[in-house]
C-alpha cells in the first residue's frame, strides 16, 4: 500500500518492510514517485472563494414547513367539505332529511286522532316533529349550495397552491 506509506499511516514494521522492498524494486519506486507527484498536484489545488455568503436569513428555513402545513390542511379541509357535500346530496336523494317515516306516522296519528274526535292531542314522538306539532324542515338546499360554494373555493385555492408548488419545484430543480 503505497498511499498509506506516503501519508505516514503504516506502522513501524510495515514501513520498514515497505522501505526495504522499495530499495530493491525499481517499478515500485517509479510508481511511488508518480503517486507522490499526483498527491502534490492535488495539494496545490487552490480553494475557491464562495460566490456569496451562505448565512441563513432570519426567517429563511421556516416558510417551507409552514407552506407544507397550510397546503396539507387545505387539502384535508377540501376533502372533508367534498365528502360532506356528497353525503348531503346522497341524503337528499334518498329523502333522509325529509323525516318521511315520521311524517307518515304523524299523518296516521292525525287520522286516528280525527277518528277519536281530537282526544289525546299530544304527539309523543318528537324525533322529527317537535312536541308542539310543528314539523322541522332541514334547509337541505341551502346547505348543499353553501357547501358547494365552500368546496369550489377551497378546491380552487388548493389547485392554485398546488400549481405554484409544482412551478416552484421545477424552478428549484432547474436552478
Amino acid at each position, binding site marked *: 500500500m503505497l*498511499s498509506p506509506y506516503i*501519508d505516514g499511516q503504516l506502522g513501524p514494521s510495515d514501513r520498514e518492510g515497505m522501505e526495504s522492498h522499495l530499495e530493491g524494486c525499481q517499478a515500485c519506486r517509479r510508481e511511488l514517485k508518480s503517486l507522490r507527484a499526483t498527491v502534490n498536484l492535488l495539494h496545490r489545488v487552490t480553494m475557491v472563494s464562495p460566490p456569496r*455568503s451562505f448565512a441563513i436569513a432570519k426567517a429563511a428555513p421556516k416558510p417551507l414547513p409552514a407552506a407544507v402545513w397550510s397546503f396539507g390542511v387545505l387539502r384535508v379541509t377540501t376533502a372533508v367539505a367534498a365528502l360532506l357535500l356528497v353525503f348531503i346530496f346522497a341524503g337528499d336523494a334518498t329523502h333522509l332529511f325529509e323525516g318521511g317515516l315520521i311524517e307518515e306516522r304523524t299523518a296516521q296519528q292525525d287520522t286516528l286522532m280525527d277518528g277519536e274526535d281530537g282526544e289525546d292531542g299530544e304527539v309523543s314522538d318528537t324525533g322529527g316533529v317537535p312536541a308542539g306539532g310543528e314539523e322541522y324542515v332541514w334547509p337541505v338546499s341551502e346547505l348543499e349550495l353553501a357547501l358547494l360554494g365552500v368546496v369550489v373555493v377551497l378546491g380552487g385555492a388548493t389547485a392554485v397552491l398546488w400549481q405554484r408548488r409544482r412551478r416552484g419545484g421545477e424552478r428549484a430543480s432547474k436552478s
Partner: protein
Amino acid sequence: MEEDELIQRAKEGDLDCFNQLVERYQREVYNLSLRMLSNASAAEDATQDAFFSAFRGIGKFRGGSFRAWLFRIAANSCRDQLRSLRRRPTTSMDDLPLELESDQPSPEDFAMHRELGEEIKRALAALPPDQRLAVILRDIEGLDYEEISQVTGSSLGTVKSRINRGRARLRHHLEQRRELFP
C-alpha cells in the same frame, strides 16, 4: 467567540452564532461541494442545503469535530445533488477553472496549469463518488484519516482503501497526460 460557545448558543437557537460558524466553514464546505460535483450552481445549492440541514439538526451534534460533522452533512447534500444531476444527463461540467498554486506564473506556465487543472477536474469526476470524497477530503481539504472516517461513517481500513484506490486511478489518468507534469 470560541467555537464551542458558538455551537452551544446555536443549539439554543441563536441564529447569529450559527451564522458565525457558517462564515468560518462556508469556504471549505463550498469547495468540497464544488470538487465533488464539478458544477458551480449545484455546489451552491449543496452548500446552502448543508447549512440549512446543519441548523435544523445542530441539537443532535454531540461534540467531537464540528468540521467532520458539518462535512458529513455536506457530503449527504452532495449525494442528493449528484442524484439530481444524474437525472439531468445533459448538464455538463461547468467552466469554473480548477487552479493550481504556482511559483512561476509565466504565461506558458499559466496555460499549462490551466490545462492540468482541467485534467484533474476530469480525473476527479471520473472517480466513483466514495473514492472521490475520500481523496478530496484528504488531499484538497487536508483532513486526517480519523476525521475522514467520521465524515464518511466508514472504518479506517475502508478510508485507507478508498484513498489508495482513488489516488491510483488519478495517477493512471494523469499519467496519460505526462507532458503536463512539471
